């Protein structure tokens, strides 16, 4: 084992992780607090035989990724709130066409332009639901620069193995915070590559919806038909029939939800059986939360690393013994909806909400709130 120790920001960690994951295409548009990812990719990609392009806007960026992905490269972009909003239509197209790619959203305080340099976690629901129609994708969130590095590799692996866009929710604290990060040795990293088709396998359908269809590269001679309109398993557009549409969207949903066991990552601190109280959190906020509950035997902390698909059953089980649940969020409260959904009305669910000014939620605030 030969890890490389570095003092880098979470944004830089994302870039290194992407390179190590085999990402060879980046298109993006500058926006605070994500730009350092772009700067680092601009530097690294040409050296690594990859392609970097600064797009004219975020609409172009996300669509360039789609083209590059179909041409065979692993592709990533990074942005923040306003740019993420502009990318929604393109992300939906990637869902529909099963185009693997990774979109990093380094969250800042919104809505609109809000506070560009201040951390927030208010894009959670948008990451899940920001696009029109029935669409499902994967949302991951790291808690630290080190995890940003490790998890972005995982993001590419999920994206490639499931042929799906993955949204990677970082935030300004992680993005601009510099910490010691260990970069893995290439041999240590397990990479998953998209499956190439054999023979006349359909490219847009499969008997088992949990198994994504294979994906050729453009130019491989498959005469691929890629379309964001409703299509059958061979890619032919069918904008008329119920069966084709329903089969397609059901399969796309099932592809994500049916693989929840593989996708769903979380961390439990403490003993869910014995605990009376729980803290449910995601992202950088969890680090304060973890400090807060140190030494508290009656509290269990559940950190969601995968935010979508969400394993509701598991969450329900983990929370089945507690009577008080704290949900600290750097927003007015979004994850709290999930918690409310899995517990019965007699459980007290309290949000610890704070956003703006680049002020984190402090351990003391969580401690205080845990008093009930």
């Amino acid at each position: 084992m030969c890890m490389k120790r570095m003092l880098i920001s979470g944004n830089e960690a994302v870039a290194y992780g992407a390179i190590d994951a085999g990402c060879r295409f980046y298109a993006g548009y500058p926006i605070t607090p994500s730009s350092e990812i772009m700067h680092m990719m601009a530097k690294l990609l040409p050296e690594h035989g990859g392609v970097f392009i600064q797009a004219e806007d975020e609409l172009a960026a996300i669509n360039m990724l789609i083209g590059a992905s179909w041409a065979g490269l692993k592709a990533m972009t990074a942005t923040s709130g306003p740019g993420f909003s502009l990318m929604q239509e393109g992300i939906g197209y990637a869902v529909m066409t099963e185009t693997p790619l990774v979109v990093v959203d380094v969250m800042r305080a919104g809505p609109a332009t809000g506070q560009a340099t201040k951390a927030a976690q208010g894009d959670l629901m948008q990451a899940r639901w920001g696009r029109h129609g029935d669409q499902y994708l994967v949302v991951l969130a790291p808690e630290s620069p080190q995890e940003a590095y490790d998890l972005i590799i995982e993001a590419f692996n999920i994206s490639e193995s499931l042929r799906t866009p993955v949204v990677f929710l970082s935030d300004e604290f992680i993005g601009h915070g510099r910490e010691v990060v260990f970069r893995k040795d290439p041999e240590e990293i397990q990479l998953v590559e998209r499956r190439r088709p054999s023979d006349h396998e359909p490219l847009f359908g499969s008997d088992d919806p949990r198994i994504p269809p294979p994906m050729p590269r453009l130019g491989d001679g498959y005469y691929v038909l890629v379309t964001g309109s409703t299509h059958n398993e061979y890619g032919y557009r069918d904008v008329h029939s119920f069966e084709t549409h329903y089969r397609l969207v059901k399969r796309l949903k099932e592809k994500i939800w049916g693989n929840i066991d593989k996708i769903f990552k979380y961390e439990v601190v403490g003993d869910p059986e014995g605990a009376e109280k729980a803290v449910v959190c995601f992202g950088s906020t969890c680090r304060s939360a973890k400090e807060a509950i140190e030494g508290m035997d009656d509290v269990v902390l559940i950190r969601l690393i995968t935010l979508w698909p969400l394993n509701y059953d598991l969450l329900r089980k983990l929370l089945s013994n507690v009577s008080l649940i704290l949900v600290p969020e750097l927003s007015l409260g979004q994850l709290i909806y999930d918690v409310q959904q899995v517990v019965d009305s007699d459980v007290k669910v309290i949000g610890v909400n704070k956003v703006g000014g680049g002020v984190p939620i402090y351990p003391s605030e969580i401690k205080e709130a845990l008093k009930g």
Partner: protein
Amino acid sequence: MFSIAYLGRGGQGIVFAATITAEALYEKGYYVAQLQNYGASVRGGSVLGYVVADNKPIKNPFVEVFDVMIALHEEGLKRWKCLVEKSKKIIVDEKLVKSEVSGAIKVPLSSIAEEEGVYQALNLVAVRLAFKVLGITGIDEVMDKLLKNRKNYDLNKKAYMIGKEIVIFRDFGTE
């Protein structure tokens, strides 16, 4: 684990102070986390930059109680009053910080810097002072290397070494 925060105003190089502090400690083998908070505007506004260091990985970089805070300007101090009040030690520039903070140690950092002609590198005076107050030893060599890789070495180095000489009226231990 120990922590040091610099407070000031846009243009004072507060983030750079935190950056180089983090890098020096990193070179010394510490686990470090460095965070900062500043406005969107290119100049002015309050700035906070801080570093946490430990021998083991940093669990939580969101520090509420700093071991030392050094405030180089009123703006930074005012903005982060809530943290300043909890800080274990607080050092403020005698001239540039106006409000009274109980327990704060006033040091004529900026005056000394001006006298010595290193006003623009006031931040580095603060960095050396921070190491001193925290009792971190043997770091000057590392810092020298780091400063050498940057512009304005002579000025910066001079400012940095001045920090070593700053006399403060409470004892923070010896190096």
